[in-house]
């Protein structure tokens, strides 16, 4: 008897809670949108990978046609032949679109800018080594700021050179003449070694830490300002600010200022912990890091204000910020490369400031980039700040006098 009553009461309470959700149409909309958005994103992050087939020599890839540069430092006939084979096989298998670059430095600059994902170097003496019956080495540098893509590029380049190498092996075995050749030359005529993008970097967390910093700063600014405003609205203190002879811009600026300080504290806490616990090293200027983090905060404050202005209550405002911030982690290239997302999703990722803040911080911390080198990111963050603020300030004024 007592059991039944408990159940009935629980049902009543559950029914009322659900009715609450049903009655708030805006909340319901975002409530339904959230899992749909999340699932479709994960589906693209872990796409089905085409199977590799060792018999036909086909290499499956989840990242088709990644741009890589080929730097040929040897002009020998064999080097040219193998370079041509590399380009041909990469193209046939849909692995890479290969462009030739004159120097390693030029290619490295492209890699830092993100226009290519890897560099293949055929070093000087490559042809001579093979001609002399010695194994030769191809060098590879990958975009280590993006660990997933980096390992894919590295292994796919190795796979292509294995295919090239096995055809040379076959020839070598045919040409065998009584033990005067190097056995490694027969087994593995071409090997692939890695030249690190930055020397001395061992922890892969090195590449994740800047992304986490940007993520913390930006989601903090989105949520922090939205919460601060809706809390003041609900507790009544916003009236005290609005009834004082001060411009609304001062209120917004004050909120942004406090949020910036909070963001910087959290950002540097992440960096400090990464250094102490995971051996992350800083190669760039802390001042430029601060500039990027301040701009990251500023770029997203407007979005938070727009959301509090639109949302009818705090719960909906929170749902809206979560729906923006959670997928942002996945489509802004912080945890996963965005290359395998569909193009439209990449556009969304690149339309959000997190992508640029993370990119800039990574370049400053790992590659010691100057302010000039990250200027495109900086300009986009500034533009984003102005754009969102232009929308947010009048919207805030209007919402406060509703």
């Amino acid at each position: 008897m007592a059991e039944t009553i408990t159940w009935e009461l629980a049902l009543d309470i559950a029914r009322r809670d659900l009715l609450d959700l049903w009655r708030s149409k805006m909340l319901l909309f975002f409530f339904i949108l959230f899992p749909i958005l999340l699932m479709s994103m994960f589906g693209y992050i872990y796409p089905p990978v085409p199977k590799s087939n060792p018999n036909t020599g086909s290499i499956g890839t989840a990242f088709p046609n990644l741009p890589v540069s080929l730097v040929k430092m040897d002009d020998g006939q064999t080097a040219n032949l193998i370079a041509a084979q590399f380009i041909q096989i990469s193209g046939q298998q849909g692995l890479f679109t290969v462009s030739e670059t004159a120097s390693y430095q030029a290619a490295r600059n492209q890699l830092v800018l993100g226009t290519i994902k890897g560099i293949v170097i055929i070093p000087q003496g490559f042809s001579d080594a093979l001609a002399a019956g010695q194994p030769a080495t191809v060098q590879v540098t990958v975009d280590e700021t993006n660990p997933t893509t980096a390992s894919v590029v590295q292994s796919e380049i190795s796979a292509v050179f294995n295919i090239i190498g096995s055809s040379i092996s076959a020839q070598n075995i045919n040409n065998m003449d009584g033990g005067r050749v190097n056995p490694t030359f027969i087994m593995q005529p071409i090997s692939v070694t890695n030249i690190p993008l930055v020397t001395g970097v061992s922890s892969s967390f090195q590449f994740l830490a800047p992304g986490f910093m940007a993520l913390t700063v930006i989601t903090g600014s989105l949520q922090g300002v939205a919460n601060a405003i809706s809390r003041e609205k609900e507790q009544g203190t916003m009236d005290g600010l609005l009834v004082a002879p001060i411009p609304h811009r001062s209120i917004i600026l004050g909120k942004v200022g406090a949020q910036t300080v909070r963001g910087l504290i959290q950002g540097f806490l992440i960096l400090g912990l990464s250094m102490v616990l995971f051996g992350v090293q800083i190669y760039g200027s802390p001042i430029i890091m601060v500039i990027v983090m301040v701009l990251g905060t500023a770029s997203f404050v407007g979005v938070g204000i727009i959301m509090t202005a639109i949302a009818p209550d705090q719960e909906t405002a929170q749902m809206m910020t979560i729906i923006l911030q959670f997928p942002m982690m996945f489509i802004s290239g912080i945890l996963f490369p965005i290359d395998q997302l569909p193009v439209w999703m990449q556009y969304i990722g690149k339309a959000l400031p997190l992508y640029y803040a993370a990119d800039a911080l990574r370049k400053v911390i790992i590659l010691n980039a100057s302010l000039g080198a990250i200027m495109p990111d900086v300009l986009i963050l500034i533009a984003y700040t102005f754009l969102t603020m232009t929308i947010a300030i009048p919207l805030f004024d209007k919402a406060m006098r509703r």
Partner: protein
Amino acid sequence: MKSKEVSQLKSGSQAGYAIETIGLTKKFSSFTAVDHVDFSVQKGEIYGFLGPNGAGKSTTIRMLCTLLSPTSGTASVDGYDIIKQGNDVRKRIGLVSEKMIMYPRLTALENLMFFGGLYGMERNALRKKSEELLEMVKLTPFKDKLVGGYSSGMRQRVNVIRAVLHDPDILFLDEPTTGLDPQSTRFVRDLVKELKQRGHTIVLTTHIMEEADELSDRVCIIDHGKIMAIDTPQALKDKYKTASLLEVFLGLTGRELRDSANERISMRAPMGRM
């Protein structure tokens, strides 16, 4: 605003009104909360602004405080237009709204220092004024305690002195004694009288008719967004031949319950208020 209204506003301020409204109207979609309201408040008086729930009292006060834009009509506060000279209006008013305007994680003194600072008051003068007002409301021993730990009565005392820190000419008190115990209610009422003595003009809303009768020089009874009567409490009682303002109020606004529902849920105003 029409030119006729401008000239009326000017003459209003010359005539020495603290507040004058002209056709003040506020609509929330199809619902008219305040409907072409005209009234004026004399300098230095306590003006009781009375009406049932949803009558339009708070909406009117929020418009006069520039927290809400009128749909049509306008008003002057201390001679300044609420639409065009919002900042001049804000410099001259103080607001005690039903929700306490103070930060629970700040002490009483910190709250006063913060809000006084918004009015550009000089730090030392502000501290002196804050301490003097805290003394007046007998909160000096608690001035360095967080207001989050105060009782409702203590909070309301801080809330009232917060509103008068910058010496506003006009003070809006929206139900200042709601939810207080008899001791605190008595104290706040005496405080209101004291503030009148100090020269503030006071607009007071309350549902307690005995409070309105005791404090108000004149009362304005509003219902369905329209003004029903304006006079001194005594004159109204004489006119309706009754000994209590409550009877006057019920006679004018009816005894039946006022039920109406707005389609849009308002999260900004507490339930039951428009």
